[in-house]
């Protein structure tokens, strides 16, 4: 009996037990599509975080107050006293001390309400210098950034994010318009382009950027501490040199050793690393659940194959009486099991891919379908069919024809 013949008779057997076959296939379909979706969710989240971090700007060092908890530069000591000042930023800006930095932008952050007529919008107010735009590698979609002159005077001008603009002004052009912040009228001179991060609601697109002096005036703050200092390295190769220089300088200025510094410096790499670690845990966890459902699907196939063999013992006996060798019977059941597995796998992959298109629209979370995961899932479904078909097929093949024929 040729392979082709065996496949055809396997298909006929599957078709003649439609309900049972569909239930078997269903188990595999659910297993495979959940593997594809969960792996896709994990990878989608990973990609999203990477996009957001990329959008922070390349070659960027982020200096934050507070001690570092580990060597990877992850910021720790939340809630510790602010220890970075505007003077620290000015010191870093000195090309003789930190030759590998191309730009420095200190930033203060506070929450304020912007008012335009009846519209009231709470956003974060960022006080910074003119270098901010280049250091954060942002662009403008309208208007201009504030000038060095305006920065020096603490002029009442602001550059706002695209989301802020649409919240306050709708379709109107915000450039040249005025908003009220804590009773002071501030002129909008420019609008930032979107940061490019795919996730909506990112604070990068919703903020008002003003000169440092303006920010202190608007919020009534008298301290000269800043919440972050962004340092742009001259190039990617010089990032680590810039890191060393900034660290040495700040440690020196603060009178601490670099080992127990009261500030921390993170790079994009370290941020990506941290985010990925979280996502990997997430993916492994979800993947584990999916793998279990795949296993359960496989056990379902084995169960059905056992039932199918038991139910068809007489058929097996008859086929053997008519001249089917044990191998032929074994092959027949193996092919049947593999066909079930493969059918389930293919439908599962299709469903997973469709789900990957539909899901992001429901839960606002990107799903990246991975080719590798898809191939692996298909291979697994086939292996499940074959693996779980071996045992019942072996049992069927070992029956003597007369025992099989006589069974009820």
């Amino acid at each position, binding site marked *: 009996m040729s392979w082709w013949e065996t496949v055809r008779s396997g298909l006929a057997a599957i078709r003649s037990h439609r309900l049972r076959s569909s239930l078997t296939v269903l188990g595999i379909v659910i297993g495979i599509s959940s593997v594809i979706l969960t792996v896709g969710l994990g990878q989608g989240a990973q990609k999203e975080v990477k996009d957001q971090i990329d959008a922070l700007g390349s070659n960027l060092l982020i200096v934050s107050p507070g001690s570092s908890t580990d060597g990877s530069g992850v910021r720790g000591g939340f809630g510790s006293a602010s220890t970075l000042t505007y003077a620290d930023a000015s010191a870093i800006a000195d090309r003789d001390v930190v030759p590998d930095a191309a730009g420095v932008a200190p930033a203060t952050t506070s929450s304020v309400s912007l008012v335009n007529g009846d519209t009231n919008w709470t956003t974060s107010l960022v006080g910074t210098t003119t270098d901010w735009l280049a250091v954060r590698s942002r662009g403008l979609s309208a208007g201009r950034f504030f000038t060095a002159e305006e920065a020096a005077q603490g002029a009442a001008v602001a550059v706002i994010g695209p989301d802020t603009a649409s919240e306050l002004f709708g379709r109107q052009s915000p450039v040249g318009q005025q908003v009220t912040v804590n009773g002071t009228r501030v002129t909008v001179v420019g609008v930032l382009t979107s940061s490019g991060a795919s996730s909506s609601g990112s604070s990068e697109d919703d903020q008002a950027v003003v000169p440092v002096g303006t920010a202190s005036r608007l919020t009534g703050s008298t301290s000269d501490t800043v919440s972050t200092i962004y340092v742009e390295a001259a190039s990617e190769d010089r990032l680590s040199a810039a890191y060393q220089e900034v660290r040495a300088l700040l440690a020196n200025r603060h009178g601490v050793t670099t080992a127990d510094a009261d500030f921390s410096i993170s790079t994009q790499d370290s941020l990506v690393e941290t985010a990925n670690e979280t996502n990997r845990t997430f993916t492994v966890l979800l993947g584990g659940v999916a793998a279990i459902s795949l296993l359960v699907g496989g056990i379902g196939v084995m169960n059905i194959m056992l039932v199918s063999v038991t139910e068809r013992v007489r058929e097996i006996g008859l086929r*053997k009486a008519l001249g089917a060798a044990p191998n032929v019977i074994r092959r027949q059941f193996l092919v049947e099991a593999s066909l079930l597995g493969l059918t389930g796998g293919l439908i599962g992959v299709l469903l997973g891919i469709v789900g990957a298109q539909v899901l992001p629209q429901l839960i606002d979370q990107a799903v990246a379908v991975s080719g590798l995961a898809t191939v692996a899932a298909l291979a697994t479904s086939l292996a499940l069919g074959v693996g779980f078909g071996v045992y019942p097929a072996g049992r069927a093949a070992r029956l003597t024809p007369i025992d099989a024929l006589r069974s009820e």
Partner: protein
Amino acid sequence: MSVIIELEGVRKTYRSGSLAFEALRGIDIRIDEGEYVAVIGPSGSGKSTLMNLLGCLDLPTEGRYVLADEDTSSLDEAALAAIRNRRIGFVFQQFHLLPSMTAWRNVELPLVYAGLPRHERRDRAIAALERVGLGDRVDHRPGELSGGQQQRVAVARALVTEPALLLADEPTGNLDSRSTSDVLGLFDELHASGRTIVLITHEPDVAARAGRNLVIDDGLIAVDRPTAAAGVAQ
């Protein structure tokens, strides 16, 4: 005339756990090619056990079975399957047709395992069905046929490979007198065309149509005699 079946000192013991039951207790038989033999005897005497051994569906516990010059005791399961396929046609009391398959699909099964190409299988299956008078029922499933028709499909399946030996275990046990005479008529034709037939029956008039009667009692051959039909058929 050459010998097709030769049994020497065949015993069959069924074991289940510590219990052992000797169903055949030393059988010696020779059957020539072209003979029509009816096996009769009381219930539980070992007729079906003997038939299963003759059909290579089961192996003797002791003794020798030579089928068409081939000693079957030395063969493995795959070789036995090939022998069943090429040399033997079975007709069972319970028909044993596959319910999900049409008549011609059932009939072609032995040819599938013989490795014949598809179109040839179909032609031969339909020819065999025509021979048993079911040329107009080839696409019916067993559930759509009467008991007599189902048994005729089974006979068609038994003769589609043109086997030398036809084994039938109470083939008419489930049939009415009309269908019984249809099936026995087919056996007479097959016998006339040179097939060897071994048939188990409870009915004296069925046994009378064969050329030779073997009476089995308690696992032994009690009587081995030619019948009145012996001269007529030859």
